């Protein structure tokens, strides 16, 4: 890489661990079509090999490289420097709402544990010996699932969510969005258990519909709408159960 002093970007990178840390400034040459991940990689390759961060695919598929860029959660491999740089400065921090392991790498354990708590896994009705289920693409449940299905588990929504910040028990937008896509999967047989899991304490009813998740989702999903769908299912399910109990 080449670059002049005039092109240099002042990059404030958060360095530290779960106990302590602070910002450290680096001068990085500006390049055409440069991404935030390119900047972080340049620092690690040329200035400080001890900088820790996480990435894998570099093309917006794997969801590994999300970080806070100028205070906003972003997928760094698909975020161009010239779109987000302010006065030739960048600040890069680990994702909000997740414990830091080191520097820019977060511990994603609780994020995936909540995915499990929300019953975010598929439980099929059929065995592999049965024919593949035919689901019409025009089916309304299939379309609702399709709107929620392209999640890459990057945790940007989880990081953007104020309810997660306030209530560590809250499952968060990604896990609830996943639950919504499965509630709309007609092949799934775990819908009653999942609805109970997502409507219990820490579940979908805690969402304030602030839509931080939908604002920052890099794949332009709308977890707020998915959570609203879960709230509706939970409320209707509860009232129907009450009605059944009353009428025997």
């Amino acid at each position: 890489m080449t670059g002049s002093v005039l092109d240099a970007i002042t990059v404030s990178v958060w360095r530290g661990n779960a106990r302590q840390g602070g910002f450290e400034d680096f001068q990085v040459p500006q390049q055409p079509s440069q991404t935030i991940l390119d900047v972080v990689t340049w620092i690690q390759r040329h200035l400080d090999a001890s900088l820790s961060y996480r990435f894998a695919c570099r093309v917006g598929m794997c969801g590994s490289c999300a970080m806070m860029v100028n205070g906003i959660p972003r997928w760094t491999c698909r975020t161009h420097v010239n779109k987000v740089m302010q006065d030739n400065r960048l600040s890069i921090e680990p994702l909000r709402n997740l414990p830091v392991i080191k520097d820019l790498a977060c511990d994603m354990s609780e994020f995936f544990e909540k995915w499990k708590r929300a019953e975010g896994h598929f439980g099929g009705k059929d065995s592999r010996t049965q024919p593949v289920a035919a689901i019409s693409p025009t089916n309304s449940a299939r379309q609702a699932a399709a709107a929620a299905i392209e999640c890459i588990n990057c945790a940007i929504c989880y990081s953007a969510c104020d309810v997660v910040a306030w209530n560590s028990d809250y499952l968060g937008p990604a896990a609830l969005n996943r639950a919504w896509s499965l509630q709309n999967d007609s092949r799934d047989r775990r819908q009653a258990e999942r609805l109970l899991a997502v409507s219990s304490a820490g579940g979908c009813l805690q969402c304030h519909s602030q839509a931080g998740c939908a604002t920052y989702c890099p794949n332009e999903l709308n977890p707020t709408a998915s959570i609203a769908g879960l709230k509706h299912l939970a409320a209707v399910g509860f009232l129907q159960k009450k009605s059944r109990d009353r009428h025997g």
Partner: protein
Amino acid sequence: MVELRLYLAQRISAAIMAPLVLLHLGVMIYAIQGGLSADEILARTRGSSFWGGAYGLFVLAAAVHATIGLRNIMREWWQMTGPLLNGLSWIFGVGLLVAGLRAVVAVVGTA
């Protein structure tokens, strides 16, 4: 199930309050067009089972709605849980209900 009951109670109470607020504002704006004193208003509301019912229902719905909202705020902002959270919520809710019903009695009571 407690969370689901509270969630539904807050939505149902909001649905009750919304038309009552519109009724209150609409009648208030309509009634004062020609000028109206407090005594004249009270002369119309005292002994009225309609206004007693409407404002009584509003106070009940407001006490439920506000209490659940405040409970959420106390839990999220101050990390309150358990008996402290529920105890403070009950005190606030009952206090709001009593204060509101006193106001209703003042408007519709005939004594």
